[in-house]
């Protein structure tokens, strides 16, 4: 009898029947990704302003990773790396507007979960995540990209107040059904332009950490508006969480909250994200709540990466990484953090990598403007973190910057090594090896100069 069952199962391959239903019911997964959100501007990450009461509540009921990092500070590539647990150069996605390759070895989280019977829904809030550009819509049952706002002429997006009701509607329709759901909601509000939201003025109420407003007027205004956007987004997240309570699925839903990258608000003389790899830009929030399975109130300080999210979710849900119908061994470049989440304790130290790729700008005389004209294969900056030692390498200018984040958390005192230093070659060789090991020649979608111009206006090009 058992042999027949095994043969039957083998014949059906990795179909959902193989995931034996005798296990505990699979939890729902709510993944919230917030665009351009610096970890250190959330109150639960130590910010003196009360910007995130609901996210704070989530952290109190779950585990917060105090040192999570993105792999690339660009929305499209960061999200695709998140869903595939692969570095951008492995996916061949180095810029916004480039889709996942049709490579069977690269499998996404929604694909895996859907193969195990999950209902899958996605709600994105900005242009770089359009299905047409990322191909992510292929892996979700429904992919809502109803973007109703624009700024800087071409760039479509939407606000938290636009996306949340639609996500809630989907939630009400798909919760408490026979199959669990995987819902991904993406918020774009902290991204430029920073709009001060009426009714969302984060007052500094934490007297223990009095808020020191920046001396520079520009920066102060920027921070005020940026923080208001965070506070406004947090309010919408509160609505999602309240809905879980109201539908009595709080205990059966794993909530994962991340950001795709942070933002530099004037530190190092730079406003924005994409070009550099300083802490404010790559340090992201990462919180997991799963009552009864993930320890509440826990803080994990070991550095982790955004590419660890998918293996962790898979490990806490279906456990079986064989994506239905794919029948290929799924390789994750990230690792599962499930045991630390469940049992407590710090995960082992592991080197964290991050990278960013430049756009090459040229003057297009027929357009009377500067445009991004070419895809650069090699990163403009990339680096690694080992515990508190951080390195950022600029291979083009042969400059390696080393920071000790324990004594210099704001990265003001770099130890710079150039080609003339004796240890330069040795120190950069490990990074070089990592990159060439992970690089792939996967076919990329080429953008037309027109599309590139639009992306430039989004600020993704220097």
């Amino acid at each position: 009898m058992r042999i027949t069952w095994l043969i039957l199962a083998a014949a059906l391959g990795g179909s959902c029947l193989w995931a034996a239903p005798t296990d505990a019911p699979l939890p729902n997964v709510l993944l919230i990704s917030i665009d351009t959100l610096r970890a250190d501007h959330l109150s639960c990450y130590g910010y003196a302003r009360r910007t995130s009461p609901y996210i704070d509540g989530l952290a109190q009921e779950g585990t917060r990773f105090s040192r999570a990092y993105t792999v690339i500070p660009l929305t499209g590539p960061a999200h695709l790396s998140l869903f595939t647990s692969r570095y951008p150069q492995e996916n061949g996605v180095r810029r916004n507007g480039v889709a996942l390759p049709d490579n069977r070895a690269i499998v996404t989280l929604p694909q895996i979960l859907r193969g195990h019977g999950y209902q899958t829904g996605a709600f994105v809030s900005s242009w770089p995540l359009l299905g047409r550009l990322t191909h992510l819509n292929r892996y979700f049952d429904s992919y809502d990209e109803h973007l109703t706002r624009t700024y800087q002429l071409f760039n479509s997006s939407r606000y938290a107040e636009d996306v949340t009701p639609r996500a809630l509607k989907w939630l009400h329709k798909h919760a408490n059904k026979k199959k669990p759901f995987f819902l991904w909601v993406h918020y774009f509000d902290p991204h430029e332009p920073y709009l001060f939201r009426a009714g969302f003025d984060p007052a500094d109420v934490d007297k223990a950490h009095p808020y020191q407003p920046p001396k520079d007027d520009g920066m102060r205004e920027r921070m005020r508006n940026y923080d208001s956007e965070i506070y406004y987004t947090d309010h919408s997240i509160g609505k999602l969480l309240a809905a879980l309570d109201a539908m009595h699925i709080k205990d059966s839903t794993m909530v994962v909250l991340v950001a795709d990258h942070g933002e530099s608000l004037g530190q190092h003389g730079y406003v924005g994200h994409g070009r550099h790899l300083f802490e404010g830009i790559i340090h992201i929030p990462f919180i997991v709540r799963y009552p009864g399975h993930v320890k509440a109130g826990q803080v994990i300080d070991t550095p982790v990466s955004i590419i660890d999210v998918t293996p962790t979710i898979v490990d806490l849900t279906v456990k079986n990484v064989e994506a239905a119908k794919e029948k290929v061994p799924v390789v994750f470049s990230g690792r599962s953090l499930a045991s630390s989440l469940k049992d407590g304790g710090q995960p082992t130290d592991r080197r964290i990598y991050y990278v960013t790729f430049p756009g090459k700008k040229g003057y297009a005389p027929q357009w009377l403007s500067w445009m991004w004209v070419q895809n650069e294969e090699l990163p403009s900056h990339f680096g690694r973190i080992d515990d508190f030692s951080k390195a950022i390498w600029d291979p083009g200018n042969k400059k390696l910057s080393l920071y000790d984040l324990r004594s210099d958390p704001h990265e003001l005192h770099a130890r710079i090594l150039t080609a003339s230093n004796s240890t330069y070659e040795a120190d950069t060789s490990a990074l070089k090896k990592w990159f060439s090991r992970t690089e792939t020649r996967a076919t990329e979608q080429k953008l037309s100069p027109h599309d590139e111009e639009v992306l430039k206006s989004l600020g993704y090009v220097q």
Partner: protein
Amino acid sequence: MTNRRKFISSVFAAYLAADRELLAETSSHTPNFVLLLADDLGYGDLSCYGSTEIHTPNLDRMAEEGAKLEEFYAFPTCTPSRAALLTGRYPLRSGLTRVLAPKEHFGISDYEITLGQALESCGYATACIGKWHLGDMLRYGPNRHGFEYFYGLHYSNDMTLRVVDWPPIRLYRNEEIIESPAHQDTLTQRYTQQAIEFIDRNKAKPFFLYLPYTMPHVPLAASAKFRGKSSYGLYGDAVDEIDWSVGQILTALKARGLDQNTLTVFTSDNGPAIRTEFVKRAGSAGPFRGGKGTTWEGGTRVPCIARWPGHIPANLKLKGIASLMDLFPTCVEIAGGTLPPDRVIDGKSLVDFMEGKAPSPEHEFFYYSGRRLFAVRAGNWKVHFIRRKRGPKGHLSTPVYCHPPELYNLEKDPGERDNVAADHPDLIERLSRIALNFQASMDPGKLPPPFWRTFLP
């Protein structure tokens, strides 16, 4: 007489008769109109308007042979300007208040009477050769709004971002696509050729040739003959080619004996895409502030050269407010028609003004941008109620109200540098009242949905 002499004299008599007939034909009908509209050409982009970078000999000669209008106004962007030109009314009345996008279900209403329709009813042959930009759908096309022949594009030559699923730029002949994507390098050449062919087909009757050039709107293009030849980059090449085209058309009119009986007007639809610290060889608005898209003088004041031998005196420099809207009643009056009585026509006939016989009939201009009134000019004073601010990356912000309104004396300060609002509260009061009264009398047409909707996936 011998048979031979009879033969010769009968042939000669026939020739005389025919010649008289021919002469009679060319002067017995009302004048032809040739309306040449450049796209995004600035006030300071022609040598006769002061450009030191671009040399435009044909247009300079046209100005020497006719009148140069120095205070001629358009609207800040394409569609509203063209709507104003072809209907003689403020764009808010026809509802065409913003640039239209490809595949949009919006365009010029059947209610509007275009200059093409008005002149057709006076017996004119009409053609639109170039960019239409009053609606992409065929029901909004030039063939259904007064132009029996159309050869050109439905909208701007840059409206083809794949990212928002816009199709390639298509070249139409009447209602048929003949080239997709259109090869933009040769558009000016082909427009010129089409224009001359149209003139040839219709030289025996009155005709209205409306030629809205695609250049020098980005992406710039010029044919091989002109590429790289000017000293001002691709922009100079494109403007040079337009200048050449104007020369060709004027020569063609002369060669066919139509010169004396044709009013030719050359102008632009709005201010230029101006030079910045990053972009060197772009358009110039001369001494004026701002460029395309703004309601400063640079965005709305455009060159205008009018030539009508025997009527418009040579080398006439005209000061006085006039606008694209005035061309409608001007042409209708010259054609011997009457203005449609059932609607407001904001334009006024410029016949006496252009002939140097009277000052301009216009005393005010209302700078509408979109559906809102941004500024008003009355006499030499200009008040800004709403303006856009330019951000650090060069982008124009959303419109903001000026608290208090800004006031400029265009005679003393044409560059709009000195805001003298504090010194003349009475003028602000007066101009505000003028603006309010005009607003109250305005009857807006059906307005399009917001522009950003056209970018949604």
